[in-house]
């Protein structure tokens, strides 16, 4: 029997705000332990939380970018549980009236549904030692958005595409930096398998502790195979939570509690509901940036780029913006794309080249002033120093010789000095011309226009 997987993802995203969700402590990764805390985020009795407007705004913005319906009325609830990462013994979250409902993440050829997006507070970070655990409350209270997907994914690749596309949208909107290594984006998965054609879902298994996108990919691949193998042996799955062990490459059952979770949600009396007015919604809507899918399409149409180029450039919003500025000043947007993709990606952060300078470099090549080979050297210097293309070309005396008369003289010299290559060429070995071309380039100290040299040599050798 053939089996298929059914995957749903719960993604937690830390919002990019200056301060925490319900207090004014700063949000920062990597600060000294317990330095970004106050009575509110430490859960002292008698304190009052006050909502961060920007966190609410960024959640609504996320909802708009993902095509969600924005709730005009939404409220806060207490999710009760005992764990030292949440010292007031409840987490402020949203239970039945989340800020965003529905929506979808677009991946190539498919839309993967979103169930809801709600806003809550992050918990503290705990460290485990031999006999004790230690808690750092810096992270406690960071605005955290939870995005719950529909069980729409059928393969590991779709789950991977979902996460990649979601990240692109959120980073593009400035909502979060989504750095998984810093815990800014965390993901749990619900996975089940069923015979192909069966409508009903299998028993779902929750997987936790996947700390990178590639970890998610490997964990899901492992878990799907494990469940299919079990199903083929006739074993029934029981609902459980499993932990992904990245080093061992396996999932294993997490110790289950005696009692199932009973969070006893109830409305948070310390916070007032949120009402999203038409005006506020319109203001946030005006901040919705062009979405990656639309941008890719536009890059193909506006700049005549292949889809591959568009995909690579759009994947990083900063790179895409840089490209557009450079392309705007150029007659050859595809050449700009080539430079960006081959020379700038990966070291974009260190780039000192202004976008219009890159356009200038491309113009110098296209205008025949310098050769492609010279351009590489010019580029390297531009990258390191930030100097303009024209300035460097002038400084280095890197002017390509396109003067046919001068090149004819050099071509004559090369022909006279290499009778064997000449003979080879005339005997029908067409590639022998490349050696002669190399000699002319050498004589010109690399400054000859290679295309022109080729033409001149071919003409002379045929004579």
């Amino acid at each position, binding site marked *: 029997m053939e089996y298929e997987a059914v995957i749903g993802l719960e993604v937690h995203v830390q919002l990019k705000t200056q301060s925490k969700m319900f207090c004014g*402590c700063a*949000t920062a990764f990597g600060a000294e*332990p317990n330095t970004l805390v106050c009575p509110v985020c430490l859960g002292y009795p008698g304190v009052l939380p006050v909502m*961060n407007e920007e966190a609410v705004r960024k959640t609504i913005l996320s909802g708009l970018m993902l095509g969600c319906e924005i709730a005009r009325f939404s409220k806060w609830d207490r999710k009760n549980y005992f764990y030292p990462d949440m010292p007031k013994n409840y987490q402020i979250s949203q239970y039945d009236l989340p800020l965003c409902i529905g929506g979808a993440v677009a991946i190539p050829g498919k839309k993967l549904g979103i169930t809801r997006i709600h806003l809550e507070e992050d918990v503290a970070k705990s460290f*485990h030692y031999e006999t*004790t655990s230690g*808690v750092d409350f810096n992270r406690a209270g960071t605005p955290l958005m939870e995005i719950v997907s529909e069980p729409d994914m059928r393969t590991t690749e779709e789950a991977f595409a979902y996460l990649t596309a979601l990240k692109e949208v959120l980073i593009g909107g400035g909502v979060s930096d989504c750095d998984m290594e810093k815990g800014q984006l965390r993901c749990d998965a619900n996975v089940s398998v069923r015979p192909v054609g069966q409508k009903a879902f299998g028993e779902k298994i929750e997987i936790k502790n996947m700390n990178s996108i590639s970890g998610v990919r490997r964990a899901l691949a492992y878990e799907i195979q494990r469940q299919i193998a079990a199903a083929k042996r006739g074993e029934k799955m029981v609902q459980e939570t499993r932990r992904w062990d990245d080093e061992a490459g396996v999932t294993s059952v997490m110790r289950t509690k005696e*009692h199932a979770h009973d969070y006893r949600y109830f409305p948070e009396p310390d916070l007032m*509901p949120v*009402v999203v007015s038409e005006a506020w919604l319109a203001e946030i809507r005006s901040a919705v940036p062009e979405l990656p899918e639309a941008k890719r399409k536009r890059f193909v149409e506006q700049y005549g780029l292949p889809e591959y180029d568009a995909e690579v450039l759009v994947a990083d919003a900063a790179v895409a913006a840089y490209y557009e500025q450079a392309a705007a000043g150029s007659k050859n947007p595809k050449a700009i794309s080539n430079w960006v993709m081959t020379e700038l990606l990966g070291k974009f952060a260190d780039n000192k080249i202004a976008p219009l300078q890159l356009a200038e470099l491309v113009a110098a090549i296209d205008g025949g002033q310098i050769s492609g080979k010279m351009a590489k050297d010019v580029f390297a210097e531009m990258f390191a120093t930030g100097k303009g293309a024209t300035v460097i070309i002038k400084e280095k005396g890197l002017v390509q010789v396109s003067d046919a008369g001068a090149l004819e003289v050099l071509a004559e010299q090369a022909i006279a000095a290499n009778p064997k290559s000449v003979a080879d060429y005339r005997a029908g070995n067409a590639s022998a011309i490349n050696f002669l071309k190399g000699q002319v380039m050498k004589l010109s100290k690399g400054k000859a226009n290679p295309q022109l040299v080729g033409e001149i040599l071919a003409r002379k050798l045929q004579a």
Partner: protein
Amino acid sequence: MPEDKGQFDVAYVAHLARLQLTDAEMTQFSSQLQNILSYVTKLNELDVSNVEPTAHAVPLTNVLRKDEARPSIDRERVLANAPETARDLFIMPKIVE
């Protein structure tokens, strides 16, 4: 919640609240809570089918603050109340999952 038709499971609720109760306390609280519950059950007599659920008793919405960070409190003071500290962390018995 496992309680049904007014039956109150004190052992379950005590566990959720991390309370350790003696048998005598179980019996005592069971009847006390039972009484409270029966009293509150009176509310069921009201027809609320046309009443909008209340999100908050106070008619206020959108109490928001600007996203501005302000200084946190001194770590020494923060950790002064911890039963035990090490590496500037709050230390507690090992948490098992």
